[in-house]
C-alpha cells in the first residue's frame, strides 16, 4: 500500500495570494464580522432553507440590518456609510454562505435602497431608508417583465396621470424579495420614457405571487408582481432619474457586489473540495495526492485568487470614484463564469457526495446558474465588453 502523503504545511487558498495584505483594518473587521454572522446564523440552516425553498427573510433582514449590512455603503439615513471595498467583502462572505442571502442584501441595499437614495426626494428617503437600513422594511426592484429581460427598454408596464395621481399597469417577473417586500421600486414608462415609482405593496391592485419550480437560488424569494391599475399619489415617482440609465445605474451597483459575491461562492466550493480531497481515500491514498486532483485544485485556487484580486481592484477604483460600468461588466463576466467552473469542478471532485445538500457544493453550483443570468446575462456583459473594445454596439 502506498504511503499516504503528508498534508502538512498546507496553506489556505487565500493565503496563497496573501489577500489579507491588500485589506485595511476596517476591511478585515467587516469581513470577520460578516463571516462570523454567516457561520453562526446562516450556514447551520441554509441547506434546510434551500431544500424547503423557503427562508425566514424578515427575521434575517432584521438581523442583517442590526449588523449594518443593508445599504451599508450609502451615506446618511441610518446607513453605515462604509467604503465600497467593505461592501464588496460583506457580499463575498454572505455569498460564501449562499447566493440567495447575498441576493436579499443586494436587492435591498444596491437596488431598492440605492434607487431611493440616488433618485428619491428627501421625503422619500426619510420615509423609507432608515427602516430599510434596519431591516424593518424590505424592498424589491421590478424591472424585468415576461417579455422584457435583457432588453428592458421594451418593457410594457405603464404609468399614466389621473388627476394628481399615477395609475400603474403591467407585470413584472423574477422579482427577488417580491412577496416579502413592503415597498417595490417599479420601473414603468410614462409617455414612452422609463421612470421609477415607489409602490407600497399594500396598495390596492398590487399582488405578488411566488414563482414555483425553481431549482436554483431556492433560499431566496422570487416573485411575479401584478400591477392592476395601482393608483398612487403624485409623489410616488422618483424625481431624480428618468430614462433607462436610472435602473441601469442601480444594476451597476448590485453587479459590483456580485463581482465579490461570486468569489465567495467559489471559495466555499474550493474549500469543500480541498477538505474532501484530503479526507477521501481511494486506491489506498487520499485523492488529494493524485496529480489529476491536484491539477483541478490548482486551477480552482488560481481562479478564486484571480477573481479575488480583480474584485479588490474594482473595489479600489470604486472607492476612488473611478469605476466605470464597463469595468463592472468585466468583473461580472469573469468572476461569475469562473465561479461556475470552480463549482462544477468541485461538484465532480466530491463524487456522489457532490450532488448532496450535505455539502455546500451542489447548492452553490445551481445558485450560480441564476447569478450567471441575472443582473445582465453573461452574453450581455460580453457585448458590453465587446462594445467597449470596438466601439460598435452589437446588441440588436
Amino acid at each position, binding site marked *: 500500500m502506498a504511503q499516504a502523503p503528508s498534508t502538512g504545511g498546507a496553506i489556505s487558498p487565500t493565503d496563497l495570494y496573501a489577500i489579507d495584505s491588500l485589506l485595511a*483594518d*476596517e476591511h*478585515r*473587521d*467587516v469581513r470577520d*464580522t460578516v463571516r*462570523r*454572522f454567516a457561520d453562526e446564523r446562516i450556514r447551520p440552516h441554509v441547506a434546510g432553507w434551500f431544500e424547503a425553498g423557503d427562508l425566514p427573510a424578515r427575521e434575517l433582514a432584521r438581523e442583517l440590518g*442590526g*449588523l*449594518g*449590512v443593508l445599504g*451599508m455603503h450609502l451615506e446618511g439615513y441610518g446607513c*453605515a*456609510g*462604509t467604503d465600497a471595498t*467593505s461592501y464588496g467583502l460583506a457580499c463575498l462572505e454572505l455569498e460564501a454562505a449562499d447566493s440567495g442571502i447575498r441576493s436579499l442584501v443586494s436587492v435591498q441595499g444596491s437596488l431598492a435602497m440605492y434607487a431611493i437614495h440616488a433618485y428619491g426626494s428627501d421625503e422619500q428617503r426619510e420615509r423609507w431608508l432608515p427602516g430599510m437600513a434596519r431591516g424593518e422594511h424590505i424592498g424589491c426592484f421590478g424591472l424585468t417583465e415576461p417579455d422584457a429581460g435583457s432588453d428592458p427598454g421594451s418593457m410594457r408596464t405603464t404609468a399614466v396621470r389621473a388627476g394628481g395621481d399615477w395609475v400603474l399597469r403591467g407585470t413584472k417577473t423574477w422579482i427577488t424579495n417580491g412577496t416579502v417586500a413592503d415597498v417595490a421600486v417599479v420601473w414603468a414608462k410614462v409617455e414612452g420614457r422609463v421612470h421609477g415609482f415607489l409602490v407600497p405593496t399594500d396598495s390596492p391592485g398590487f399582488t405578488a405571487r411566488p414563482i414555483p419550480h425553481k431549482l436554483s437560488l431556492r433560499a431566496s424569494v422570487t416573485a411575479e408582481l401584478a400591477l392592476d391599475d395601482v393608483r398612487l399619489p403624485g409623489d410616488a415617482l422618483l424625481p431624480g432619474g428618468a430614462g433607462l440609465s436610472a435602473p441601469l445605474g442601480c444594476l451597476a451597483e448590485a453587479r459590483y457586489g456580485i463581482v465579490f459575491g461570486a468569489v465567495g461562492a467559489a471559495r466555499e466550493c474550493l474549500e469543500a473540495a480541498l477538505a474532501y480531497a484530503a479526507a477521501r481515500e481511494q486506491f489506498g491514498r487520499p485523492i488529494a495526492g493524485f496529480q489529476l486532483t491536484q491539477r483541478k485544485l490548482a486551477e480552482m485556487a488560481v481562479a478564486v485568487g484571480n477573481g479575488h484580486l480583480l474584485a479588490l481592484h474594482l473595489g479600489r477604483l470604486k472607492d476612488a470614484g473611478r469605476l466605470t460600468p464597463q469595468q463592472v461588466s468585466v468583473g461580472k463576466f469573469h468572476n461569475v463564469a469562473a465561479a461556475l467552473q470552480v463549482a462544477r469542478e468541485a461538484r465532480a471532485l466530491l463524487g456522489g457526495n457532490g450532488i448532496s445538500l450535505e455539502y455546500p457544493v451542489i447548492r452553490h453550483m445551481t445558485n450560480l446558474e441564476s447569478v450567471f443570468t441575472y443582473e445582465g446575462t453573461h452574453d450581455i456583459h460580453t457585448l458590453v465588453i465587446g462594445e467597449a473594445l470596438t466601439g460598435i454596439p452589437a446588441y440588436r
Partner: protein
Amino acid sequence: MREVDSETMKIVVCVKQVPDSWAEKTLRPSDNTLDRESVDAVMNELDEYAVEEALRLQEAQGGEVVVLSMGPSQATDTIRKALSMGADAGVHVVDDGLHGSDAVATSLALAKAIEAQGADLVIFGSESTDARMSVVPAMVAERLGLPQLTFSSSVAVDGGTVRTNRVTEYGYDVVEAPLPALVSVVEKINEPRYPSFKGIMAAKKKPVQTLGLADLGVAAGEVGLGAAWSVVAEAAARPPKAKGTIVADDGSGGVAIADYLSAQKFI
C-alpha cells in the same frame, strides 16, 4: 464604602488576544513560548462576554467603558474589536519586556494599568482559551485590594454595590460587594453582540492609549520570561487519537453505550 455615581461609573474590561481556538498552535523553538505570529489571533472568546456585560451595564445606567489589553503589537486588533462593539476607549499595554510573562507578572502589569485608570468596576472573562489558568482576575483583585466576585453568571450594579450570581457545583451563590470591585464572568452570561458596521467605522476614531513598562512604573526584572516562576522545559505533541471503539449492535448496543458513558463519568 465609596459612593459611586452610576452616571460616571468607569468600567475597565480586560481582554486578551489569543490564537484562534481552531488553529494549530506551536511553541517558538528558541524559548518554548507560544508562537503568536504564526497563527490567526482573535479576542479570547470568554472576554467577549466580559465586554458585552460592560456594555449592557453602561447602556442601563451610563458611565464609561475602557478596554484594557496587554499583548504584542497586533493586540490592537482585539482592542479595536471591543471598540467596534461599543467600548469608549482603549488602553494597550505593550512592551518587549513583557514577552513570556507568567500569570503573576501579567497581573502586576494589569493592576498597575487599572490603578492608573481609576476603575469603579473591573470585568474579566473567567479564563483565556490559550493559557486556561483562571487565576489572573483573582491575582489582580489581590494586588489592587479589591473585592473579587468571580465566575459570575449575572452582574447587577446598584448605587455603590455590585451583586453577582457566582456559579458553584451545586448552583450559584448570590454575592455582593461595595464598589470598586472586580468581577469575572462565565461563558453564556449573555450573548455577545456582533460589532456593527457603524461601530467598526466609529472605532477608528476612538482613543487608544499605549503604555510601556516605564509608563506603568514596573521594573523590567519584575516581568517577562526571566521573571517567570516556571518555565516550559520541553513540549511534546499529544499522541494521535486512538481509533474509537466500535460496538456491533446485536440488541445490546444501548447498554454498551450507557456502560461506556458511565465509565467516562458522563452519566
